[in-house]
């Protein structure tokens, strides 16, 4: 049975070069990634993401992300939504500065003191959002974070079993039960694109399955057959409900 990966949060900063707020987003994201929540977060490089970076886009599709934008144009948030999936949280530095009554940051290459204050505030907010998304809460008595709450197990084909937030589906391959992470989402994605079950979609489907699951090459062909059949069943069900 494949191991399920630890849930992590993707951080995407706009790094906009025109405004000091863009530099604030960059430094705030790095502060979260390197100092505040290094083991809970992953950096999404926005230019690579927009240029078609497969690893980053796949990650953002199925893991929660926090977009940190400098201004109301929200390039990081909109880009993530357009090319992958809607971010779980969007922070806009210019709004945060207004809300909190902070001084306007100055400097693009090097921020002034007001800019660094905005970095701290933005990073703290993002770190808190990371904790919320991971289901952590601070225990004052214990002086540490409580672990993630285990989600209630639900009966049925698609259950979330590791606290990762990613649904899984159990299938039978050669008489053995196998859990495939993200399979319900993959089916949903293909159905929304109007992809009809069959050999044309099979390779694409397996490529997506292999992004989230370790598939033994010796049984890959058998897994493929099972996944095609499962998608056909899903497709018929969705069409029947439409």
């Amino acid at each position: 049975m494949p191991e399920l990966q630890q849930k992590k949060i993707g951080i995407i900063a706009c790094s906009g070069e025109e405004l000091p707020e863009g530099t604030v987003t960059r430094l705030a994201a790095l502060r979260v990634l390197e100092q505040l929540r290094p083991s809970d977060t992953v950096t999404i490089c926005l230019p690579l993401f927009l240029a078609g970076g497969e690893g980053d886009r796949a990650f953002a599709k199925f893991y929660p992300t926090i977009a940190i934008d400098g201004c109301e144009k929200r390039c990081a948030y909109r880009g993530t939504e357009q090319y992958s999936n809607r971010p779980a949280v969007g922070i806009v530095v210019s709004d945060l500065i207004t809300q909190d009554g902070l001084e306007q940051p100055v400097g693009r290459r090097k921020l002034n003191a007001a800019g660094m204050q905005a970095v701290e505030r933005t990073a703290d907010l993002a770190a808190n959002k990371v904790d919320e998304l991971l289901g952590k809460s601070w225990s004052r008595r214990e002086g540490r974070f409580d672990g993630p709450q285990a989600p209630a197990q639900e009966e049925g084909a698609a259950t979330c079993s590791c606290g990762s937030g990613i649904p899984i589906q159990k299938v039978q391959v050669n008489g053995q039960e196998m859990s495939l992470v993200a399979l319900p989402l993959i089916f949903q994605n293909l159905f929304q694109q109007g992809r009809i079950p069959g050999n044309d979609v099979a390779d694409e489907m397996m490529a997506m399955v292999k992004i989230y699951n370790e598939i033994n090459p010796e049984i890959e062909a058998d897994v493929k057959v099972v996944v095609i059949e499962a998608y056909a069943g899903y497709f018929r069900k969705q069409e029947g409900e439409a």
Partner: protein
Amino acid sequence: MIPFLEIKVDKFTFRVDPTCFFNSEGVWVRVAGNRARLGLSDFLQQRSGDIAFVEVKPEGSLVSFNGAFSTIETIKVNIDLSSPVTGKVVLVNPALENTPEVINQDPFGEGWICEVELNEWEADQSRLLDATAYFELMKREAEDEVKNI
């Protein structure tokens, strides 16, 4: 074509060519007749970063098992690579002179480092990991790295 072994950690995918043997560092060897090509595994190239410079023992040089045969330099690390075979360097990849980043782009293909005429392949092979064994080693190293951040 036999598919590559793959593992995904966070947003990174690491691949292992099933036709190669590996030393524990992550240097691969692919044998054809009495010659072998050597290169860097996908995991090792990703962990090292963008390769800026590569130095390789020149053609005609002798290499011994576990002896240094090449040095790669990135902004993160300088690594002396240990040879997984014993023999004589007969060809150095000419692409490495001007475009060493080919190692990052295609570590098991166009990014090969050198070719060696083999002297003691049977003895050397017994000290190497096959692709499956290297894959397990690589998995542990990749997961440990993520945990130790």
